[in-house]
């Protein structure tokens, strides 16, 4: 492949939408996500995808994507560096816990995040903050 050619890759993954878990191939053209294809050999979806699955690359570059951390200052969210945002989060959670007890802090984990991320957030709530106030929208 010469430098003039666009690079093209298919990355096998799992659909981001419902709980069926269809197999997808993420099309990556020159480092950008350009489309989604079905996986023919997937044990559940067997080469099928619904409309949401086929178009699941479209929101990734939406202008509404968040691309910088923000902190509210004088009532308005202002962009900041990660370092500052993390510091404010750590202080805010610790302050609530120290002043009002661990059960004054709560965590919504997510049915759209990975197993690893859900595991880490409940571990953080339980082992670091000391509360079992952990739930997500399974009920909604």
């Amino acid at each position, binding site marked *: 492949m010469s430098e003039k050619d666009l690079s093209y890759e298919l990355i096998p993954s799992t659909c981001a939408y419902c709980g069926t878990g269809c197999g997808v191939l993420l099309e990556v053209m020159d480092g950008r996500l350009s489309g989604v294809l079905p996986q023919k050999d997937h044990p559940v979806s067997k080469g*099928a995808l619904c409309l949401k699955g086929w178009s699941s690359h479209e929101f990734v570059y939406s202008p509404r994507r968040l691309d910088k951390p923000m902190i509210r200052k004088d009532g308005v969210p202002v962009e900041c560096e990660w370092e500052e945002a993390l510091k404010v989060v750590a202080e805010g959670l610790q302050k609530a816990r120290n002043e009002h007890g661990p059960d004054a802090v*709560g965590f919504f984990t997510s049915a*759209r995040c*990975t197993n690893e991320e859900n595991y880490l957030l409940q571990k*953080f709530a*339980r082992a670091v903050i000391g509360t079992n106030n952990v739930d997500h929208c399974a009920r909604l």
Partner: protein
Amino acid sequence: MTNSINELEDTHAILVIGSNTTEQHPIIGEKILSAVRKGAKLVVIDPRSIHLSDFADVYLRPRPGTEVAYLNGLAQVIISESLQDRDFIETRTEGFEELKKLLADYTPEKVQEISGIPADELVRAARIYAEAERASIVYCMGITQHSTGTDNVLSLANLALLTGNIGKPGTGVNPLRGQNNVQGACDMGGLPNVFTAYRKVDDEAVAADFESVWGVDNLSRKPGLTVTEMIEKAAEGELRALFIMGENPMLSDPDINHVSKALQKLNFLVVADIMENETMQYADVILPAASFAEKEGTITNTERRVQRIRRAIEPVGESKPDWEIICAIAAEIGAKGFDFNSPLEVFEEIRRVTASYAGITYERLGARGLQWPCPQEDHPGTPILHEKVFPIGKGKFTACEFREPAETTDEEYPLILTTGRLLFHYHTGTMTRNSPSLTKEIDKAFIEVNPIDAKALAISEGDMVRVASRRGSLEVEAKVTERVGKGVVFMPFHFAEAAANVLTNTAYDPVSKIPELKVCAVSISSLAV
């Protein structure tokens, strides 16, 4: 699901109840239609007629909130016509006599009075389910989002136990999970009362076990609060700080006006998400998260299949995967046990504390994934649960009496509102409403009104109407359609500009704590001039 998705294609009868499968789980819906093409019988029970009801041998339209009554009715018919599986009941279950006693009152005629389902149709549905050699129950939020949700599920389980439709291919009690990782979020202990693999936080031995693995000595033995309870406690001023990862309660939770007041009362709110959403207006800190295409990890589907997601592109802008964000906050606090360099390393720790995942490795997941329980590395995974024995030994019949929903209609609010989702959209729309191919199909809210009600209220197709409940009101366009029965209206909840959850009721099931999003009382008036 007790069983696996593909088994639906080869079963003999399917009972679909409270699941608009072709719209919310289109690939599973297609498998149900494929079974029908091969000769399987289909029973659909839903207050709103759906695509699948067009293909059903029997379609029953109950009044919303009467699930226990008509499920008891189905069981009553099965017993009175001696269609139950006597061997299965004898060897694998207990509590049959109590159930039989309770069911005596739920004759088809009585059930018709309560639910509006014609008695002879109920009998036909019961025969289809009980007479099939193998029959599968498929259900979704139409069963669970009720103040009697637990009783609804137990009543479904009664049907499977009565007919021996459990533990074999093509059978089972099969809830369809709405989001890509609801199953995994629950498996991982993203719940207030359990650690991973549903081990209880108030079990001393379990808590001590996690203390030793995590290297801490102060884990709380007190079960925590659910989402709905956290909102309540925030409103009361008891919950002071909230960290929200990838959720949007300002659109998804019942009684949004109340949610808004609760979130404003917090001292400190952090929201991590991929997209701008309605909840952020109250956040003190907003953290940009990487999307599914920008990170590694695993998710678990509705049939318990653990599968990989893979990083295809770099995180957009300065966004970071949520796992990195959590580890970075822990590092900032100086907490130990969060120095992970990759999701793989996190997964290795998950395996150590989660027996059902212990035999799963990233390597083994390959292109097919593995269905838990998978306790050892040479275990092939488990497509069908309860084949020989139930985790509690014998399967237990639970006799449940019918209770009316928390809110019933009256003169001021004479219609029942039921909420749901559309084919082209997903939950609060942060992904689908930013996808041009989907917004091109539909991008605005509506309310479905039966022609008889529309005529009485002088509402025509396309009119703007005001919809009000005891909690709030909104304006939305009317669709006049026989998809809903007389006295019932339907709204999708995806659309912030006419958010159905402004209207819905926070009353919840005492056990599952699921709010009654499928039934509340509303009034409608035309705004057309």
